């Protein structure tokens, strides 16, 4: 027996475990079976790309992981907490505590400044105003937008908006960052800048899931999960391409 390792034989902490996940959408009389039994484990610190053709169920899967939607069947364990019997209030609290979201269309609140947008999740955590603002400014600084703190989203470029959104997602110190096509609305250069940021956050130890269509973006992750018709057809580790090498 080697010294020091006896207590943590594996050294890896499981962050997300899903088993046999099913989801159907009712469409009037018929029903559309979107997820047909998904299984995977994601460990802490992973950077996973979820790929697949349009309509393959990527967003649906991410929404269920993000507790924005509920699976019909299957188990979901997040950081050793079984996620079940969710009502809206409970889901809201879990989202606030465990999860950060980045959307393709940014979803910033248009009448709030960058700083106020970033501090909003902290408001819902009950953090005091002064701390909230300090912390939000700190995160804006990390995404390189400290000088843009007082600007409204309409005064920012797409890349800047997405960086504000990432700062907002990070501000609540989530366990997992969920990004649904974060570069979908951005040009190539800006996309790489955003991926560079995501890689850096990942290097600090954050678990991140990125839904994407683009193979080059997927190559910047450490693992690629491919979906087709509601099942995983491929799940492989890849050699990560650093976004900074393009910038």
């Amino acid at each position: 027996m080697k010294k020091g390792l006896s207590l943590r034989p594996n050294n890896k902490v499981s962050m997300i475990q899903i088993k046999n996940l099913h989801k159907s959408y009712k469409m009037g009389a018929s029903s559309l079976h979107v997820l047909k039994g998904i299984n995977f484990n994601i460990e802490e610190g992973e950077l996973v790309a979820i790929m697949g053709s349009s309509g393959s169920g990527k967003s649906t899967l991410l929404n269920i992981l993000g507790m924005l939607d509920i699976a019909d069947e299957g188990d979901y364990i997040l950081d050793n907490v079984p996620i079940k019997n969710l009502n809206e209030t409970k889901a809201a609290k879990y989202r606030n505590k465990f999860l950060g979201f980045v959307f393709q269309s940014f979803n910033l609140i248009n009448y709030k400044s960058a700083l106020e947008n970033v501090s909003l999740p902290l408001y819902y955590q009950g953090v005091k105003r002064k701390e909230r603002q300090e912390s939000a400014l700190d995160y804006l600084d990390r995404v390189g937008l400290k000088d843009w703190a007082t600007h409204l989203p309409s005064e920012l470029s797409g890349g800047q908006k997405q960086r504000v959104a990432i700062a907002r997602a990070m501000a609540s110190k989530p366990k997992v960052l969920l990004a649904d096509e974060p570069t979908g609305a951005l040009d190539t250069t800006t996309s790489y800048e955003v991926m560079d940021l995501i890689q850096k956050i990942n290097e600090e130890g954050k678990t991140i899931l990125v839904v994407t269509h683009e193979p080059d973006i997927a190559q910047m992750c450490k693992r690629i999960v491919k979906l087709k018709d509601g099942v995983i057809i491929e799940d492989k580790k890849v050699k990560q391409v650093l976004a900074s090498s393009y910038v």
Partner: protein
Amino acid sequence: MFNRDRWREIFETISKNKLRTFLSGFTVALGIFIFIILFGLGNGLKNTFQEFFLDDAGNAIFLYPGKTSKPYKGYKANRRIEFKNEDLKDIEENFSFFLEYLSPRIDRSASTSYKNESNSYSTRAISPGHQYVEKTILMKGRYINQSDINEKKKTAVIGRLVAKDLFKTESPIGKYINIGSTAFKVVGVFQDDGGDREERNIYIPFTTRQLIEKGNDKLNQIVMTYRKELGHAGAMAFETALKKYFKEKKSIDPTDPNGIYIANPADDLKQSQQFAIVLQYIVSFVGLGTLIAGIIGISNIMVFVVKERTKELGIRKALGATPKSVIQMILQESVFITTISGYVGLFFGVIVLENIGLKLEDYFIKNPYIDLGTSIAATITLIVFGGIAGYIPAKRASSIKPIVALRDE
């Protein structure tokens, strides 16, 4: 409710969405404003009406002599009936149970002068009780009193407009005016809600009038008030008894509709009170209508506001806002706006009402007002219903799943 952070969040939202805030605030302010104006004007109409009908004491009874139309006990028809001083005594003695105040009237019209000013006024010879029957309001000096009557003094109480015509700015009290060819000392000036005509009267003691007219004891009319606590039924009984008594005393056929007349406003009073109640209903109805319109206005705006904010609410929920906190935010915001703007509407309504108050008397609206209780109750009603109106869309918005709210259009 008293969470400072939550208030700050609400103030931020309000101040950064000025148009929305203005729209909802304006509806509420306008609703309350119109409510107050309409209600106030309605009250003004009611006031005019009441004063118009209640110029004389509400419990006054007027006794007029006339001509008989039927022969009776040897008298021919077409005989003129007259009242005399003894009739006053008889009423006092026989009807003390009903009677409150009593006065005769002898009306004459005479040219009246003071120094170079002269004009024709009606002179009404009366006794002290007349002041209460006519609801005369003394402005200066005193009314005709019992010693004026007993000693047949040449004293006069003149109407406000008589004083204005004859004395201009001079004080009339203690001065002498000539009524016909007799000099009278002015002892008082009065005003009367019955209007200008009443304020061009001159009151003198009835005994003095009889003395001037060769010492006769004739009276034109007898006016009196009955005790209010007897009510409508008591007044009617009084009237019947009076009629019976005088028909017998003056030998008039009991079936003769003429001979003497009694004007008893008890009947009118009842009608006019009913009319006032109807007016009150109309006023309340209009007020209620305005309030309902205001509530519908707020409801619509709330539906619009919540719809406009669907996406924002979805974002907030994705970031950890619970359904409860979403409802609370929308409600607190709407109640805050309604309260402030309700108060603004209330304030301006009352100001406008006070300023137009005096200018509308020509349009039968006198002293329009709204009591504080009604206006505050209206404002609170609007706030409460505004809250309920906000709750329904807020509740719906809070139960929309965040993915639905966030879905790209």
